[in-house]
């Protein structure tokens, strides 16, 4: 018989970025599950339905943000594919988009768009049949310039903010996070029990807040 060992209380140690730096981040299994429940609701609200299919582009170091979203995809009864959010691995993103039907692309970043453009892939054509394109950073603006209607996503320090509709401001789950600003920068406070509690944690994101919504400063992404 194989050994059966209880999983550790600690899910993992990752990081979140603040500007050019990063903060080490310990997460418990319990908070990952709570974040996954929240992600399930958000993904459903922006149009993911049972039988859907999602292409997730991320870096492994983003797993603390992305694993709850991944579980959210599965809890919505949808399928998922994964590609690295690097210029090199954009060939994989291009292959998936060419080969299979996707209802959602989740986490499209500058690196992915860079890689696709280096390959000579036309963004409007590649994403034409993807109903919901959740994009972050300058990738959002580049997809919009290509005539697409992306949905804004922000990795906001330890929080994840996703707009509820294309063109709208990114939002955090108000049950999980409170937002404020300090010197023009968004800060986040955790509202639920976490291994690492956050009180007015700087995010490096310039903007103002409107409840749980982030209004990005001009020129900020």
């Amino acid at each position, binding site marked *: 018989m194989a050994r059966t060992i209880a999983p*550790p209380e600690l899910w993992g140690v990752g990081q979140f970025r603040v500007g050019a730096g990063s903060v080490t981040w310990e997460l418990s299994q319990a908070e990952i599950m709570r974040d996954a429940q929240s992600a399930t609701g958000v993904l459903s609200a922006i149009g993911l339905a049972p039988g859907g299919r999602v292409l997730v582009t991320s870096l*492994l170091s983003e797993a603390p943000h992305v694993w709850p979203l991944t579980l959210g995809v599965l809890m919505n009864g949808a399928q998922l594919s994964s590609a690295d959010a690097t210029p090199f691995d954009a060939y994989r993103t291009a292959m998936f988009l060419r080969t299979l039907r996707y209802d959602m692309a989740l986490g499209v970043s500058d690196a992915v768009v860079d890689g696709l453009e280096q390959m000579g892939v036309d963004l409007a054509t590649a994403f034409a049949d993807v109903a919901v394109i959740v994009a972050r950073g300058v990738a959002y603006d580049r997809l919009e310039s290509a005539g697409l209607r992306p949905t804004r996503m922000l990795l906001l320090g330890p929080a994840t903010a996703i707009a509820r509709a294309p063109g709208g401001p990114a939002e955090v789950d108000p049950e999980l996070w409170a937002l404020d600003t300090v010197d023009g920068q968004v800060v986040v406070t955790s509202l639920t029990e976490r291994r690492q509690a956050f009180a007015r944690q700087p995010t490096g994101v310039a903007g103002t807040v409107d409840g749980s919504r982030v209004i990005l400063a001009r020129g900020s992404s």
Partner: protein
Amino acid sequence: MSDQNSAREISRESDLGDDRFFDPDIETASRSALAALHEEKLLELVPYAYERSPFYRKHWSEAGVHPRDILTVDDFRERIPFMDKDAIRAFRDAHGDPYGGLLCIPESELTAINSTSGTTGDPTLVPERWAAGGSGPALARDFWELGVRPGDHVAIPMFTFRGPIYNFPHVLGAVPLIFDHSPAELPRICELVRRYRPTSWYTMSGPFLLALAELEQSTDVDLRDVFSSFSSIVFAGEPLGVRAKANAERWGMPLFHHSAAGDVGAAFECREHDGLHVWEDVGFYECIEPDATGPGDATPVADGAVGELVATSLGSDVFPLIRYRSDDLDRFTRQRCACGRTHARLWTLGRKGDEVIVDGRSVLPVDVWGAVEALDETAAGLFQIIRTQRQVDVLRLRVGYAGAPSDLGALAGLIADSVEAGVGVRPQVELVANAELLKLGPPHKIPRVAKR
């Protein structure tokens, strides 16, 4: 710190008992028990795949084989035709089936659709239906042997494209430290390793070792201290060159080799360092004459000899590979290992598709490696064999150099001398900067052959 460091001092004596195995029943099963398991699973798999997979129905019918003909493992070996990645791609393109005709369950039942690495060409889809536990159990056996125990941390600099493999330490009660497999992450990795003192690392690569050497030169980081807590550092993919090996030894890295096993499972070294174990309840592995054209002339090589690995998945009812020619040249044995495990072991030599024959002499990247690394300017071991076809008149190499050598012509001559002395064939050498070659690959390796 002392209790953390003691984790790596697992004494061999204390490990040779039951504590050495994560799943003792299967890991030390007798060969006859494994043979019985193979018979049961293969005879179940053949009709299952024939009924559900258009690829196998077509492929086997063309070979004149029907499941009713397959009543024993010998029938399986003698009748079931081989297949390979090109056959899957050809079916995919001819029939517009993204799964190459191999999917055996309704598409709607899939959890995830991931893909092969694709570094050798276009990636192919890997459809999956996740069960509770995922890929954890098989990996857990390997990492238990490599010293991971409940409460440990495991450093995981990896990729996302094969799915959430990084969660596997949970099965062992251990906690993953999650990083990108990018040399840019190394300063942060070193910092967190010193804070959490992980006992295992999955995975280390050639470019990472190169970047560590550069980090050591440009900062005051003490890499012996960084690697002091590890009982295992799993090195994937390419052969480890002499310089990289010397550095790893100097830093006190307990390196263990790891490789894919025919896209069906994984192979890991155990602490005996005597070959890489495959799990034979996960895959049915054969090692055949590399020139074989079909089951008719596919003589199994003698135990311990070199051949091409052929793999059949025993654990997949979703997307089973059956008699899949891996293109991997391995030495292969079913002799019991000194660790007590009874499952087969292999030693990877290279890819059949990377081999060139120069003047009747076989040359693989592994043969050239040491000769390239022996010179200071090319110590990084970054090179490609230019392989326009398998049989070539001249061995052509593209070799990467560091810095700005004053006389490239002279350097090319020295490399040619070194390769000629080591391989017995004098190459033509084209020199390019290391950075140019590194651009060609993902962060963990570069293609070792190029068409031009």
